[in-house]
């Protein structure tokens, strides 16, 4: 019974999370003696998913899939799952996949576990570890359904290289129009998104006011990072809501999270905990963030951040 992966792409390019999903599926498939089928909707021919472990790529040919619509993607994937006999479907933690997966679960009468952080600990039935309580704990859950849908947490498994020759075949799906119509899209094209970012530079009320965010943006630019902020900063209107991270904001699972002038309240830490390496810069050595961080500097952001920007530029010049 093959494993089906929803291989999301953005403007014709497969995201790193997609590569990770495929590697994860491949490790499962090797255990289950089966193969990995990647379903793509926009035919990004640039990358070969075989190198991450896919055996087959199905190109879902239907113009209705040219822009993301959760209902239609769920409908298409449920047809593919039925046609291929897949009993496991792997999706990412992107906003789109989280929107789509519950619809797919009902169509397939499948169990769905999001925030999965590693390979199953048992395969028949599937039991997986996943984050709960906004990363304050891990749950081990068994799926009791014929088909299982696993939503992999970002950066939980990593990208692995394979030398598989993935054969690409067109696959037809029949879709009717959706009850939800997308009328326009408002997307900053040049900004690194928190959801995809390897590095996130985040600042809090310690920065005193919105006029001081220039250096935060500059630091993010030097690091190729996304910018984020604490909740009060967005509530005060210093930064857009879309940058609010934490338990009630966006989750962050980057490789590196740099917190500047953020105290480290429990609700903030909950949302950023699954980042691999955490750095704090804060004037107060007793700020709770120091208990959660891997590296810290006790000091004034207004002195340290400009220095950090300059030293990083030098570092980059040397390591280029």
């Amino acid at each position, binding site marked *: 019974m093959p494993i089906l992966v929803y291989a999301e792409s953005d403007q014709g390019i497969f995201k790193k999370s997609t590569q990770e999903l495929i590697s994860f599926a491949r490790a499962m498939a090797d255990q289950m003696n089966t193969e990995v089928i990647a379903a793509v909707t926009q035919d990004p021919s640039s990358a070969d998913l075989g190198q991450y472990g896919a055996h087959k790529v199905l190109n879902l040919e239907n113009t209705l899939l040219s822009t993301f619509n959760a209902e239609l993607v*769920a409908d298409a994937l449920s047809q593919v799952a039925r046609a291929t006999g897949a009993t496991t479907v792997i999706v990412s933690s992107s*906003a789109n996949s*989280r*929107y*789509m*997966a*519950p*619809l797919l*679960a*009902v169509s397939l009468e499948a*169990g*769905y*576990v999001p925030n999965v952080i590693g390979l199953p600990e048992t395969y028949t039935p599937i*039991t997986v*570890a996943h984050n*709960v*309580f906004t*990363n*304050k*704990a*891990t*749950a*081990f*859950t*068994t799926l*009791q*359904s014929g088909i299982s849908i696993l939503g992999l947490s970002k950066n939980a498994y990593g990208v692995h290289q394979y030398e598989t020759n993935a054969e690409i075949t067109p696959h037809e799906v029949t879709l009717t129009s959706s*009850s*939800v*119509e*997308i*009328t326009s*899209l*408002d997307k*900053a094209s040049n*900004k690194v998104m*928190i*959801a*995809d970012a*390897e590095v996130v530079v985040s600042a809090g009320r310690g920065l005193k006011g919105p006029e001081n965010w220039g250096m935060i943006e500059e630091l993010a630019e030097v*690091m190729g990072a996304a910018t984020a902020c604490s909740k009060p900063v967005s509530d005060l209107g210093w930064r857009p809501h*879309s940058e609010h991270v934490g338990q*009630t904001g966006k989750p962050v699972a980057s*490789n*590196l999270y740099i917190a500047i002038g953020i105290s480290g309240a*429990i*609700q903030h830490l909950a949302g950023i905990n699954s980042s691999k390496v955490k750095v*704090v810069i804060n004037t107060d050595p007793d700020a709770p963030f*120091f*208990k*959660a*961080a*891997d*590296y*810290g500097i006790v000091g004034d952001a207004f002195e340290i951040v400009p*220095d*950090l920007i300059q*030293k*990083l530029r030098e*570092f980059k010049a040397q390591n280029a």
Partner: protein
Amino acid sequence: MKILVCISHVPDTTSKINFNADQTAFDTAGVQYVINPNDEFGLTRALWLKEKQGATIHVVNVGGPETEPTLRKALAIGADEAIRVNQPATDGYSVAQALSAIVQEGQYDLVIAGRESIDYNGGMVPGMLAKICGYAFVNTCIGLEIEGSSVTAVREIDGGKENLKTTLPLVIGGQKGLVEESDLRIPNMRGIMQARTKPLHVKQTENINSMSQTLRYEKPAPKQAVTLVENAEQLINLLHNEAKVI
């Protein structure tokens, strides 16, 4: 317009997360429960719709009797009636099934749920509910306008937002943005008094099945102490050579 707001009863955000001795269940000792923050934004948006264009607002929770104070709080904030489906919330699928029975019986035009509950973080109940009921669905909804049965909505996506058009009946997975933090309402004395006499119906459902079962929980291993550095140069050095993240 009939609006149903789904209310998840969750530990307060400051709660320490502990489990029972054999690690199979959440330890509720000393934990304060609140309306799930995403649902509180949704409830406030529902009140605005009621005030502007008229609506009845019902709130619903799937859970045991211990969730009733949370439902009473929603009544005190302004909902008209509450429903508790007397069933343990074992997994997202079973909760969505139980809610679908309520939605179908009540013929609601609009169902407002939250993007996710902050306890089990499933983010799955609203979508499953929509699909079971055959309602349209908008997730991570940060804007909602209704005229007759036409709906315009805004959805937060990774790195931006998307404007959508749809029709009632509709389920949304809401969050901050539907209303702002400062728009949230604290129950006043009059609301609390009124809530005592507003109806709270307890219902049973049948033929509910779970798709998954949680066997045990673990807490993360204690963290190593922070490495303090003096300056930017040392930090870059450690991030490069030790942590290998730059």
